[in-house]
C-alpha cells in the first residue's frame, strides 16, 4: 500500500464547490425559501428548571398572521422503540427538541408558532401562556452530585460498575477502566504529581445558525431542507420524534456552515414539520445566535483529577484519573470517550480511569470535535509536562520514552495497529519552532493527543458521462472540502484529473444510506466506498474495451486513464481512453455505473503533537500566542490543503477554549454571554500563522492508508497552551479559560 505511487492523491486541486462559495451562490440552511412559506418562532423556557403546569397556546392564534401553534403535548409520547443507538436516546432527544412536562434549561423549547411574518410569529409566541412550577437549578458538578441535589430525572438510575447509587440521582453513568495494581504503581514511583483541573462548558461556535425549511404534502410526505452533518440521521430522528414513517420523510442537506459535531442531531426539524402539517404551508425556522448558544449542544464542562507516578529514568508507571463531565439536561456526556483517551497515549503498567456522566440544568451537550478527549488531555498532558519538569527531562523526550506504538495494549483493551505517535514527536522535536529563541515572559509548551476515527456505514455511487467524465454521489454533507477529496479518489482510480470528476452530496432519496459527516470518518469510510465503486467502474471500462477489441477481459489492462492491451492480446490496437470508451457505452452494454457500500471498523487512532509559544503580558495578564505548530499523522493526506485546514482550525478552536471561551451562567442558570461579543472566539488578530507538518503512517484498514484528521487537532491545544503559560510564568493554570484576570491573580500572588 505504501508502495503505491499516487498521481492524484496528495495533490491540491481547487475544490469543486469553491466557485459557488466565493461568489455567494452556495445555498446554506437559511438560504432556502418556498412560495407561501411561513416563518416560525420558538417560545423558550425562562427558567433553568421547572415543571410545566399548563400551557395555553390559544392566545397566539388570535394574533393576525399566525397560522399554527404547537407545544410538546402535540407530539407523540416518545418511546424507546426504534431507538437508534448511534444517535442517543430517542425519548431524551424528543424531550430536548420540545419540553413536555418539565423544562431543564433556560432556553429549552416549550412551544412554537408559524405565521406569515417573523414578527407575527414572535408576537404569537409571546402571547402563549405557560404556567411553571419553578424548581432549583443544578448548575455545577458539585451541586449535582450533592446528597440533597434537586433531581432532574425521576427515573434516572446510575448505570455502571459498583459502587453506584441505586436511587435516582444526577449521575447517569460510571465508566471504569483499570489495570495493574495502582497502589503498587505509586509505591514504585520516584515522583508523583497530582492535580485537579476544570474546564468550562464551551460551544462549537459554527458561524451558521441552525436553519430548516419543511414542506408537507397532501399525502403526508415531508421534505426537509436543513444544514446538517447527517441527512439520514435527521430523517431517522425526525421520524422517531414526530411518529411519521421514515419513508415519508426526505431530507435534502443544504451547504453547511460549520458543525464540528453540533449539527449531528436535531432541534428545529420536528417543530417545523409539525407546524407545516398543521398549517398546510411550508415553514421556515432559523435560530438566532442567542438561541444557538442557549439551546443547542455545547460540550461538557469537566472536572478531572490526575495523579501520575514516574521513575527517575522517565518511565511513567502509574496513573489515576477521575473525571466528571457535565452532560447538561439529559445523560450523554462524552465521558466514556474521555476515559478511553485519557491515558491511551502512554504505556502505564498500573492505571485506574474512573468517569462520571452528570446531568445539570444546562443545555444538552452535543458532540464537539473529538468529544471528551480535549478535557481529559487538558489534565493528563499538563501532569505529564510537570513530571518531565520534576525529572529535568525534555517534555518530548519524556513522551518518546513512554509513547505507545504498534502492538502496545490500549487501556481500553485492544492492541494498537500501526500508529504514528512517535513520528509526530520526532517531527515536532526537529521542527525549527522547537528551538526558536524565547524572550522574557515567553514560554513554550508541548502536548499530544489522539482521536479514534469512526467507521460506520457509507455508500457511494459513481457513474460515467458520455464524454468520459465521472460523477460521484455520496450522502455526506461537505463540511470542509470532502467533495474535493472524493473527486481525487475517483480520479486516482480512473486515471483522470480531479477536475474531470463532479462530486455531489445526495439527499436521502438519491444517495444510499450513509452515516454522519463526523467522527473523522468521511475520507476514511466513505472514501473506501468511493474507491471500491471506482474500481468497479475501471473493471467495466476494461470489459467494454475487451468487447471493442474482441478479446477476453484479461487482455485489457487499465493504465493512466486508458485501456491498453495486455497479455499479448490484440497487440495491434491503439489504447482507448476513457472518453472513447464512454462514447461507445450504448453499443458495448449500456451506461457505466457502479456503487459500493461499506461498514468498516474504526480506523486506527490519529495522533498529533503540538507546540505552542506564548508571551504573557505582566501588566494585563493577557496571553499572546506567538507561534503554533501542529504535527499530525494523517495516514495519507488525500488533499493536503484541507488536511492542513483541519489541523489549523482545530488548533484555533482549542486555543480559544484555552484562553477565552466559556459559558457564563448566573445563579438562576441563565446564560449571561449568549453572543459573539461576550462569548469570545479567536479572531484573526488573536492568532499567528499555524504551522503544520503532516506525518503519514498508513492506516492498514484503508486502501490508501487514510486516517480521519478532523478531530485530533482540538485534543492537544488546551494543555499545550497551558504548558506554555506555565513555562512563561512558573505557574500552573488548572482552570480554563486562562483569562487575563486569572493570569494576573497568579502572577500577583508572588
Amino acid at each position, binding site marked *: 500500500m505504501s508502495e503505491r505511487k499516487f498521481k492524484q492523491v496528495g*495533490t*491540491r486541486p*481547487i*475544490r469543486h*464547490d*469553491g*466557485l459557488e*462559495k*466565493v*461568489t*455567494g*451562490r*452556495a*445555498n*446554506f440552511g*437559511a*438560504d432556502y*425559501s418556498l412560495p407561501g412559506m411561513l416563518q416560525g418562532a420558538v417560545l423558550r423556557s425562562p427558567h433553568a428548571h421547572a415543571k410545566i403546569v399548563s400551557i395555553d397556546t390559544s392566545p397566539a392564534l388570535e394574533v393576525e398572521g399566525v397560522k399554527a401553534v404547537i407545544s410538546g403535548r402535540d407530539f407523540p409520547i416518545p418511546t424507546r422503540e426504534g431507538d437508534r443507538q448511534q444517535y442517543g436516546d430517542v425519548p431524551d432527544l424528543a424531550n430536548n427538541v420540545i419540553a413536555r412536562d418539565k423544562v431543564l434549561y433556560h432556553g429549552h423549547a416549550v412551544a412554537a408558532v408559524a405565521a406569515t411574518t417573523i*414578527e407575527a410569529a414572535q408576537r404569537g409566541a409571546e402571547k402563549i401562556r405557560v404556567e411553571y412550577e419553578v424548581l432549583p437549578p443544578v448548575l455545577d458538578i458539585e451541586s449535582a452530585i450533592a446528597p440533597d441535589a434537586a433531581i432532574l430525572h425521576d427515573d434516572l438510575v446510575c448505570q455502571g460498575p459498583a459502587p453506584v447509587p441505586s436511587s435516582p440521582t444526577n449521575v447517569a453513568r460510571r465508566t471504569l477502566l483499570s489495570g495493574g495494581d495502582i497502589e503498587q504503581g505509586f509505591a514504585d514511583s520516584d515522583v508523583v504529581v497530582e492535580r485537579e483541573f476544570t474546564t468550562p462548558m464551551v460551544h*462549537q*461556535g*459554527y*458561524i*451558521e*445558525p441552525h436553519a430548516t425549511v419543511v414542506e408537507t404534502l397532501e399525502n403526508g410526505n415531508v421534505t426537509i431542507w436543513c444544514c446538517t452533518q447527517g441527512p439520514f440521521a435527521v430523517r431517522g430522528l425526525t421520524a422517531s420524534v414526530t411518529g411519521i414513517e421514515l419513508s415519508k420523510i426526505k431530507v435534502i442537506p443544504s*451547504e453547511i*456552515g*460549520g*458543525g*464540528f459535531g453540533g449539527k449531528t442531531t436535531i432541534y428545529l426539524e420536528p417543530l417545523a414539520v409539525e407546524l407545516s402539517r398543521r398549517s398546510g404551508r411550508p415553514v421556515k425556522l432559523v435560530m*438566532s*445566535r442567542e438561541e444557538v448558544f442557549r439551546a443547542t449542544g455545547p460540550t461538557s464542562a469537566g472536572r478531572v483529577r490526575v495523579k501520575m507516578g514516574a521513575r527517575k529514568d522517565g518511565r511513567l508507571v502509574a496513573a489515576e484519573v477521575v473525571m466528571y463531565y457535565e452532560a447538561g439536561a439529559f445523560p450523554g456526556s462524552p465521558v466514556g470517550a474521555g476515559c478511553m483517551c485519557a491515558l491511551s497515549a502512554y504505556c502505564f503498567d498500573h492505571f485506574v480511569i474512573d468517569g462520571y456522566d452528570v446531568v445539570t440544568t444546562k443545555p444538552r451537550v452535543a458532540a464537539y470535535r473529538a468529544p471528551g478527549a480535549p478535557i481529559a488531555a487538558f489534565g493528563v498532558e499538563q501532569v505529564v509536562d510537570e513530571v518531565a519538569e520534576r525529572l529535568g527531562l525534555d517534555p518530548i523526550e519524556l513522551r518518546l520514552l513512554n509513547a505507545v506504538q504498534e502492538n502496545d495494549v490500549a487501556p481500553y483493551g485492544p492492541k494498537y495497529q500501526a500508529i504514528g505517535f512517535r513520528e509526530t514527536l520526532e517531527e515536532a522535536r526537529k521542527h525549527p519552532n522547537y528551538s526558536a529563541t524565547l524572550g522574557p515572559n515567553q514560554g513554550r509548551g508541548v502536548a499530544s493527543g489522539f482521536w479514534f476515527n469512526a467507521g460506520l456505514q457509507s455508500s457511494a455511487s459513481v457513474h460515467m458521462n458520455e464524454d468520459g467524465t465521472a460523477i460521484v454521489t455520496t450522502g455526506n454533507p461537505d*463540511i*470542509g*472540502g470532502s467533495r474535493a477529496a472524493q473527486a481525487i479518489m475517483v480520479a486516482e482510480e480512473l486515471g483522470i484529473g480531479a477536475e474531470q470528476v463532479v462530486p455531489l452530496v445526495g439527499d436521502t432519496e438519491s444517495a444510499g444510506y450513509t452515516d454522519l459527516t463526523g467522527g473523522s470518518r468521511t475520507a476514511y469510510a466513505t472514501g473506501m466506498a468511493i474507491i471500491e465503486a471506482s474500481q468497479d467502474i475501471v473493471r467495466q471500462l476494461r470489459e467494454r474495451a475487451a468487447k471493442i477489441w474482441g478479446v477476453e477481459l484479461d487482455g485489457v489492462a487499465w493504465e493512466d486513464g486508458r485501456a491498453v492491451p495486455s497479455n499479448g492480446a490484440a497487440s495491434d490496437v491503439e489504447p482507448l481512453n476513457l472518453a472513447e470508451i464512454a462514447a461507445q457505452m450504448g453499443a458495448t452494454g449500456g451506461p457505466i455505473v457502479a456503487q459500493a457500500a461499506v461498514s468498516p471498523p474504526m480506523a486506527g487512532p490519529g495522533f498529533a503533537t503540538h507546540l505552542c509559544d506564548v508571551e504573557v503580558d505582566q501588566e494585563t495578564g493577557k496571553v499572546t500566542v506567538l507561534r503554533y505548530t501542529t504535527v499530525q499523522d494523517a495516514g495519507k493526506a488525500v*488533499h*493536503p*490543503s*484541507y488536511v*492542513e*485546514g*483541519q489541523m*489549523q*482550525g*482545530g*488548533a*484555533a*478552536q482549542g486555543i480559544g477554549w484555552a484562553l477565552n471561551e466559556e459559558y457564563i451562567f448566573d445563579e438562576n442558570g441563565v446564560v449571561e454571554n449568549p*453572543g*459573539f*461579543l461576550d462569548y469570545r*472566539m*479567536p*479572531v*484573526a*488578530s*488573536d*492568532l499567528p*500563522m*499555524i504551522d503544520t507538518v503532516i506525518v503519514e503512517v498508513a492506516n492498514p484498514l484503508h486502501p490508501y492508508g487514510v486516517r480521519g484528521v478532523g478531530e485530533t487537532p482540538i485534543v492537544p491545544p488546551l494543555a499545550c497552551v497551558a504548558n506554555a503559560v506555565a513555562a512563561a510564568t512558573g505557574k500552573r493554570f488548572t482552570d480554563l479559560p486562562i483569562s487575563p484576570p486569572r493570569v494576573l491573580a497568579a502572577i500577583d500572588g508572588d
Partner: protein
Amino acid sequence: MARMHVETTINGESAEFLCQPGESLLDALRNELNLTGTKEGCNTGDCGACSVMLDGRLVPSCMVLAPEVEGRSVGTIEGVAQGDELHPLQQKFLEHAALQCGICTPGFIVAAKALLEKNPDPTEEEARYWLAGNLCRCTGYDKIIRAVLDTAAEMNGTNGAATNGAAG
C-alpha cells in the same frame, strides 16, 4: 405595518424594494431582494458574515437599517466578480483553500476587498487587524491571511512572498 419603499443602487444597478421600517439591510438583501450571498451569523454586528460596502465603506449589514440605503450605493458579494472574471481575491481564496465550510467566505472577501482598496500592500498584522471583525471558526485564519496577502502581492505585481506550499 406599512412597508416602506426604498430606491437604491446595488452592485452598480438601480434597485428598489419594500421593507419594514425597522428591517435590517441584511434582511432586505436576503429576503426582499433574494441576494442570499450575504450571510447572517449573529445579527449583532459581531461576526462579519453580513459584510457589505455602503458608499464605499465596509459595514455589517445587520447593523444598518434597510431604509437608510435610500439613494445610496450598496456593494455585496454578488457584485465582486466582474462578468466571467473572478476578483483576484476570489481566485486566491480558492487556490489557498482559504475556506472550509464557506459560510464566512462572502464576508471575508468583501472585507478583504475593502482592505486592499484602502491599503493595497498590507502587512500580515494589518490584514489580521482589519479582518478581526470577521469570524471564521473553521480555518484558524492562516490560509485566509495568506490568500489576502498573496492577492495583494499579485495585484501589486510583486512576488507572492506570503505563499507557502498551499497554492501548490
